């Protein structure tokens, strides 16, 4: 067993890939009986300390429909200088540069340890990165000031030759001309009227003046298209003027009457930003960064009217079809998101307000383009400031972690087809022989576009085994998949990362044990959860829960060991033992339950769930709970009410919140001040230990989570109590005795009841 765990971990570290199954059932029929689809979580740009890019271009298979990249799985004939493609079996000549190739003189891409390799492409024009700030000025003075400072600060963090632009909006939308001359000019647009890209470009003078310039100097056609843009200027030229310009920004001057919301033209402002970049920098890395402090209240994309007495839509309104502006607004932002994705740009949304800001309607802008979504209470919080700083964080090489304009192409061997992908991507609609007709997620294609990504961006990719049952794969056969990610590195180079993996096929009858042992329950849980969350965007909650339950029951029927109609005999092997509790916690998670969350919050949580890597996603599904006490070193404990003990300190990580909870006795000791007495120094250490560990998490996490310090009986203890399995409730308290934990006042089903039902259903011959 340990060997499979090691294998899985090694593969994740080397290739950034986790498969639900690591030995593949060899026929379509058997694969469908496995319940959990053959799928993987792929982190295309996983940070690798030991992977310097090679400085040449990849060698492609010559078959036009294949074009797979030479990899360690290819058969090589060193004497004839030929290689056989492992996907289409085409025999290819090595290019002239490879004449010196031999068994002892191999290029890196043929060595087994380079199953993942990165190529640096020299050709092609290098265009600078673009950052376009779209700033809401309908903010409170304190918030606006903090935001202005953060933006000024960001000028010091941006790459010096990046281009930067500024659009501000309130009732009107202002596009600021940036010049070094010290006179600030801006173009003002009304916030109520939507404009086409063409109109925007005409009005900003982006099309007309550029034409004669190009005609006058035909020698340099597309060399420096950015010279003509007065709205986007290199940071190193404009930083002083832009600092002043930002410093002088005022709150929206239009009066806001009592009982009204400020008029906020977010929809038009975004539309202008998208149009501006569309006209000037299509297909180069660009971020539109929207900073907003409230909902759009006028023009296209408005989410709520300006009357304060009419609250913004809730889940209740949406269920009753009572959300007046939702559909229209969503359509507007979807149109913008799709255009942005086509241009290869991304949209970030930084929404800081106490009430909802319309993330539900605007979510597609970030989801389809790979942009970030950040939700906070105020721009004057460390949550916003540090999250924003971390966008510009650098890796160990001193390069920015962000990457742009990626296309991910997936190639499979013949027995497999691609069913779809779920993540921050859009389909490129590339059909081909390896594309399945059965879609899971965004399907019908073998290529996706990821407009912006970083070292943790992760896609779920789903496959279908198509090999027929009566055409067995020869013993020892292996299936292969190649992931080819082309992207723009933050240094503006084009790079190609290629990962080629292979797994064994196994006959599901004779080698069932192998398949079972090679199940990766963590990956499977996240992949199933992504499917569920993807469906939750369009389907009713209860339907999805039922679907998840049915899948779980079927999986237990297939892989459990039991005697028919005898629930007590039910057992799952080690490789499946955690899976049911993952599903239990997933059912209770904010990704599938909207109760107690606003539509904006649900959108926010789902946004992050659909892009984080396996470890973080799993923390979101089932939070981590550590216990600190005098009885030994800190240890992970069950996420269960029985773990809440008086003499323990608990540290819970839910990804979005870090909670430190002091048990009753510990809290009393602290109140009595023992930590300040020299003879109880160890108590002080005990109090400090979880704080230190929490800080370590806080330092690495993006976005910055909320940080909750609470104790037994504290009102914020609810964050812990709502996450633990309610094994003791007010209903069964006395059955468990008094001293074994904290009863939770809930009618929710506990894991035990859940498991009892699951076993009953799994062993029953009726279902």
């Amino acid at each position, binding site marked *: 067993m340990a060997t499979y765990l090691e294998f899985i971990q090694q593969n994740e570290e080397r290739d950034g890939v986790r498969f639900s199954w690591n030995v593949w059932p060899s026929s379509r029929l058997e694969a469908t009986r496995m319940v959990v689809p053959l799928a993987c979580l792929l982190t295309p740009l996983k940070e690798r300390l030991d992977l310097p890019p090679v400085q040449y271009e990849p060698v492609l298979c010559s078959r036009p429909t294949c074009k797979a990249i030479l990899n360690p799985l290819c058969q090589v004939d060193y004497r004839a200088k030929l290689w056989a493609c492992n996907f289409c079996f085409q025999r290819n000549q090595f290019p002239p540069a490879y004449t010196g190739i031999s068994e002892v003189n191999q290029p890196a891409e043929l060595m087994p340890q380079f199953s993942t390799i990165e190529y640096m492409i020299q050709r092609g024009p290098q265009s600078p990165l673009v950052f376009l700030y779209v700033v809401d000025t309908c903010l409170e003075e304190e918030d606006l*000031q903090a935001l202005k*400072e*953060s933006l*000024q*600060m960001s000028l*010091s*963090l941006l790459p*010096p030759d990046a281009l930067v632009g500024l659009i501000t909006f309130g009732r009107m939308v202002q596009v600021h001309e940036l010049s070094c001359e010290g006179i600030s000019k801006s173009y003002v647009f009304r916030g109520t009227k939507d404009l086409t890209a063409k109109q925007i470009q005409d009005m900003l003078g982006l099309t007309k003046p550029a034409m004669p310039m190009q005609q006058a100097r035909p020698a340099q056609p597309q060399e420096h298209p950015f010279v003509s843009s007065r709205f986007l200027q290199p940071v*190193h030229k404009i*930083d*002083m003027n832009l*600092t002043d310009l930002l*410093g002088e920004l005022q709150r929206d001057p239009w009066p806001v009457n*009592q009982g009204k919301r400020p008029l906020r033209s977010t929809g038009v402002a975004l539309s202008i930003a998208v149009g501006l970049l569309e006209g000037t920098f299509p297909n180069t890395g660009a971020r539109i960064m929207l900073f907003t402090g409230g909902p759009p209240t006028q023009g296209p994309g408005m989410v709520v009217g300006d009357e*304060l007495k009419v609250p913004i839509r809730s889940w209740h309104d949406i269920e009753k079809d009572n959300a007046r502006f939702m559909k229209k607004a969503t359509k507007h932002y979807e149109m913008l998101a799709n255009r942005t994705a086509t241009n290869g740009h991304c949209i970030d949304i930084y929404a800081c307000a106490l009430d909802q800001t319309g993330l539900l309607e605007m979510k597609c802008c970030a989801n389809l383009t790979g942009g970030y979504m950040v939700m906070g209470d*105020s721009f*004057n919080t*460390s949550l916003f400031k*540090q999250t924003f700083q971390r966008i510009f964080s650098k890796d*160990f090489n001193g390069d920015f972690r962000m990457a742009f304009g990626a296309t991910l192409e997936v190639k499979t061997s013949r027995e497999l087809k691609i069913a779809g992908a779920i993540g921050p991507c859009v389909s490129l609609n590339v059909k081909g022989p390896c594309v399945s007709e059965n879609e899971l997620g965004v399907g019908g294609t073998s290529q996706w576009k990821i407009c912006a990504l970083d070292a943790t961006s992760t896609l779920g990719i789903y496959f279908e085994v198509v090999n027929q049952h009566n055409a067995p794969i020869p013993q020892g056969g292996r299936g292969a998949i190649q992931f080819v990610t082309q992207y723009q590195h933050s240094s503006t180079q084009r790079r190609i990362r290629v990962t080629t993996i292979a797994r064994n096929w196994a006959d599901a009858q004779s080698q069932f044990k192998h398949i079972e042992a090679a199940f990766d329950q963590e990956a499977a849980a996240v992949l199933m959860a992504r499917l569920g969350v993807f469906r939750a965007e369009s389907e009713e909650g209860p339907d999805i829960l039922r679907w998840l339950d049915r899948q779980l029951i079927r999986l237990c029927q297939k892989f459990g060991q039991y005697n028919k109609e005898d629930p007590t005999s*039910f057992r799952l092997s080690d490789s499946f*033992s955690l899976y049911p*509790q993952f599903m239990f916690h997933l059912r209770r998670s904010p990704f599938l339950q909207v109760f107690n969350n606003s539509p904006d919050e649900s959108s926010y949580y789902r946004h992050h769930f659909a892009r984080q890597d396996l*470890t973080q996603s799993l*923390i979101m599904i089932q939070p*981590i709970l*550590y216990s600190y*006490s*005098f*009885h030994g*070193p800190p240890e*992970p404990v069950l996420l*269960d009410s*029985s773990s809440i003990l008086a*003499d323990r300190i608990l540290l819970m990580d839910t990804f979005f919140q870090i909670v430190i909870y002091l048990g009753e*006795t510990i809290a009393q000791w602290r109140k*009595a001040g*023992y930590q300040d007495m020299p003879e109880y*120094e*160890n*108590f002080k*250490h*005990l109090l*400090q230990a979880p704080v230190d*560990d929490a*800080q*370590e*998490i*806080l*330092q690495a996490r993006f976005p910055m989570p*909320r940080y909750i310090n609470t104790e037994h009986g504290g009102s914020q203890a609810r964050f812990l109590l709502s996450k633990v*399995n309610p*094994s*003791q409730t007010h209903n069964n308290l006395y059955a*468990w005795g008094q001293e*074994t934990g904290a009863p939770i006042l809930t009618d929710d089903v*506990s*894991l*035990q009841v859940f*498991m009892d039902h699951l076993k009953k259903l799994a062993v029953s011959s009726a279902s």
Partner: protein
Amino acid sequence: MSNSRRLLEDDRIRCPEIKARPLKSGYRSRRGWCRPERQSYRKVSRSQRAWLGRAPAPEVTHRHAGGAEVEMAELYVKPGNKERGWNDPPQFSYGLQTQAGGPKRTPLTKRVAAPQDGAPRVPTSETSPGPSPMGPPPPSSTASRPPAVGSCPASTVDPIDFPVIECETLLEDVLRPLEQALDDCRGHTKKQVCDDISRRLALLQEQWAGGKLSTPVKKRMALLVQELSSHQWDAADDIHRSLMVDHVTEVSQWMVGVKRLIAEKRSLSSEEEANEEKAAATSENQTVPEQDP
């Protein structure tokens, strides 16, 4: 509605006033109360955790010969803004955020499998009988655990109060080299840019003289100027970034001038170097034919 909002706003304005006890390093900026920077809030020390028995990371002292003071100034954590953000997380200084990893401990990602019946284990008696609820915690001396407590001396655990070195950073010492650098750039850099930088240096002078800059800013500016004078462009640039991140309110208006100055001085000196090389090359070429005949 708006009335109640105004009330709230008033509260916010008032609250800090109540807190405004005479704090040594507290100050009021033009926008109101600014939290004093508590550099002694907590020194992050890995050795403290050794007793926990998990991956006892070796004590890494971050005090390299030259950068000692920089490190001291830059590693701190201060609380978040609880008044504006619900459960706002603490704020890490630029130095802490960019710290080159160091030996990372095993991340806290372990889980316990629930027994297959889903029922929680009844806590075993050896772990739960802890002290009676109201009794004191086990005193340090008698407790068999934590064993490592002795090995980590109390001094490293106490928040380290950095000795207030009574070296007043003088405005002159910071400003003069900056102005000198600006003078060097005149002729090389556009006049308008030079004037702009000069305007910002004046602003720096004014704020410094008016007592509006805090001690950490002054100290780090002194370091920045040192690095600039010794042509350590990257180091100077990094200090500028750390000041922008940690003290943006104080420095944002004029720091961009310093940033530009670093960049201009850098390009000037690289140009000069290139020229010198060229000059050296040409002079060599000139000497060669002389020797030949």
